[in-house]
């Protein structure tokens, strides 16, 4: 492979345009754009030097690609990813991965069998504050975690409006797929796929075709219980705001896009800079600049990792591989089933309470 990666960005909607701009500016990328719909492609094809395709099959047939970035409506992810993997092309796919998690599993296996880089755009794992939260959890900073709150709020659907794919459930629209997927993906990162899902509610506020708010309770065997609370019809937030709070036997962690706050009851070995009480780390101090900044380091960072992994010939695992995104697709399927049937989905062993230390005669 030459040291330039030949990469097509497919789908030039809201996410696709920004992916295209970042990939196109990457010094290791030779970029091609592809989108079926007329307006954007018309304007771009007259104004940029990057080659532009209007048909995905045509693109795959004519170009000898190293990689594709798939940023089309979610319903199209599975067939488009499949077609790329079949041709031996590395794939970065926008989230959510596939609407049917059986597809997600199948494509995970296919990518693994072919030894291809296969990544999904859950950019929150690249936000410094959430990465710090993950590091603290893994280091046992707050002991045994029992209590989890995962939230996301923002102003997407604020009044009844005409349907687009983002507000059509069959197309992979809706608050669950669009918003809740992010905090769920973080919970999957921290704790894996939940063993039980209960108390789910997929509520409509303004939309007719899909959900605008999501509640759910997730449980892990011998692990924490998490409450999910998500609403994309909340105008009080300027843009999407995702936050996770965790309480454990040794304290509390909170993270959002900007900062990670830790409260430790006592210090933990191996965690420098975290003393008893509060410690706050900001994303700004936890983040390195990449080659190009468009709308947050995390977006640049995930694409940089992907392109560098492809350039390195597929060596090394990437964050957000297909297997991890499949966990999130499966979790969302459990929430939908639970909300539709009213029956708990799966079972989870309750965590035993921490045994009290045996007291001596004069112990207190």
């Amino acid at each position, binding site marked *: 492979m030459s040291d330039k990666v030949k990469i097509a960005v497919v789908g030039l909607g809201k996410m696709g345009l*920004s992916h295209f701009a*970042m990939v196109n500016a990457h010094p290791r990328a030779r970029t091609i754009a592809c989108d079926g719909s007329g307006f954007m492609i018309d*304007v771009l094809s007259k104004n*940029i030097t990057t080659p532009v395709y209007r048909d995905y099959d045509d693109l795959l047939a004519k170009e000898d690609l190293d990689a594709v970035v798939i940023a089309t409506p979610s319903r199209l992810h599975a067939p488009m990813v499949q077609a790329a993997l079949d041709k031996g092309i590395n794939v970065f796919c926008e989230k959510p991965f596939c609407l049917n998690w059986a597809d997600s599993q199948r494509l995970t296996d296919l990518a693994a069998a072919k030894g291809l880089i296969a990544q999904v755009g859950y950019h929150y794992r690249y936000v410094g504050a959430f990465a710090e939260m993950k590091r603290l959890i893994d280091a046992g900073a707050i002991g045994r975690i029992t209590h989890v709150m995962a939230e996301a709020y923002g102003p997407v659907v604020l009044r009844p409006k005409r349907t687009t794919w983002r507000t059509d459930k069959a197309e992979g629209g809706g608050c669950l797929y669009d918003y809740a997927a992010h905090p769920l993906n973080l919970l999957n990162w921290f704790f894996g796929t939940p063993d039980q899902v209960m108390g789910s509610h997929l509520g409509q506020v303004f939309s007719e075709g899909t959900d605008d708010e999501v509640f759910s309770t997730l449980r892990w065997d011998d692990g924490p219980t998490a409450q999910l609370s998500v609403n994309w019809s909340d105008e009080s937030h*300027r843009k999407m705001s995702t936050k996770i709070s965790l309480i454990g036997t040794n304290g509390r962690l909170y993270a959002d896009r900007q900062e990670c706050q830790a409260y430790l009851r006592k210090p933990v070995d191996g965690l420098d800079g975290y003393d008893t009480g509060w410690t706050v780390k900001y994303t*700004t101090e936890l983040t390195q600049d990449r080659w*190009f*900044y468009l709308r947050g380091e995390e977006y640049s960072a995930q694409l940089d990792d992907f392109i560098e992994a492809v350039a390195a010939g597929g060596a090394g695992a990437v964050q957000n591989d297909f297997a991890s995104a499949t966990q999130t697709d499966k979790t969302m399927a459990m929430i939908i089933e639970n909300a539709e049937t009213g029956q708990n989905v799966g079972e989870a062993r309750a965590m035993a309470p921490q045994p009290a230390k045996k007291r001596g005669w004069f112990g207190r």
Partner: protein
Amino acid sequence: MDKLLFGDNQFFGINHMSEEKARAQAMRFQKTDAIMDVLDVAYDAGINTFMCTTHDRISDVTRRVKADPARYSNFQFYPCMPYAHKYANAVTEHGMVGALREFMPKDGLLATALTGTKALATKEVDGIARVLIDMEMKMFAGTRAPVVFIQNVFTDLLLGMGFTRAFKIFDDHIREKHGAEPAYITMNMPALLDALEKEGIERPIICSNINKIGFRMSGGYDAYLDALKSGRVRAVAMSVYASGAIPADEAIHWISELPGVESIVFGASSAGNIRGTKALVDKYMGEVV
């Protein structure tokens, strides 16, 4: 340009450190009176330029400034366009073409062109861009607005895509129609400078992060310093305190010794911080007039 410009992030709940602080600021500044109080402190401290987004609420500020020409005789605006959320929301609601049609004069040729099934001609695209610029400038009619910026998300999207001809359209239109200096906000200053020069735009005014620790100076600290030293750019420095990571005196002193930096833009909501920054700029960069 003045050496010190007053920014507006603090008024609209934008804070790069804390969502809690951002919300507290959004609450504090939801009334235009609260914004005007802070602008008055800055103006009375001798900071005459307000560099602001073309947010709907800024029209309240321009109205007040126009209403009292005696009080605000030296007050000027540096508009930064577009206010991206307005367009993002419109695109969510109406789709890309529908959103553009929303913003075009209803009976004009451009609205008609957007309704048609034919691909847009290049001159129609240029025309649409000019109409959008004029719309953003409307609220500044009757004020002094001698420098007009493109916001960084938009600049950097166009830069990344390689749609750099748009900069030329903007540059020409701001000069010809609005009699102002075109300028650019970016997070990728060295790359933007190259792109602008290729479009024939010489010695552009570029606002970007410039700070001692290299915070969000994408393209690399050294490339920024090289660009500044080359004399090819008239720089406006933002994030000079790197979101509070650098002590104020040290930050301003460092900036003052850089070649090529003509202005600093900063945002603050307390009188102490406003006067403090003004005093430091006077001390290190000479009296702000």
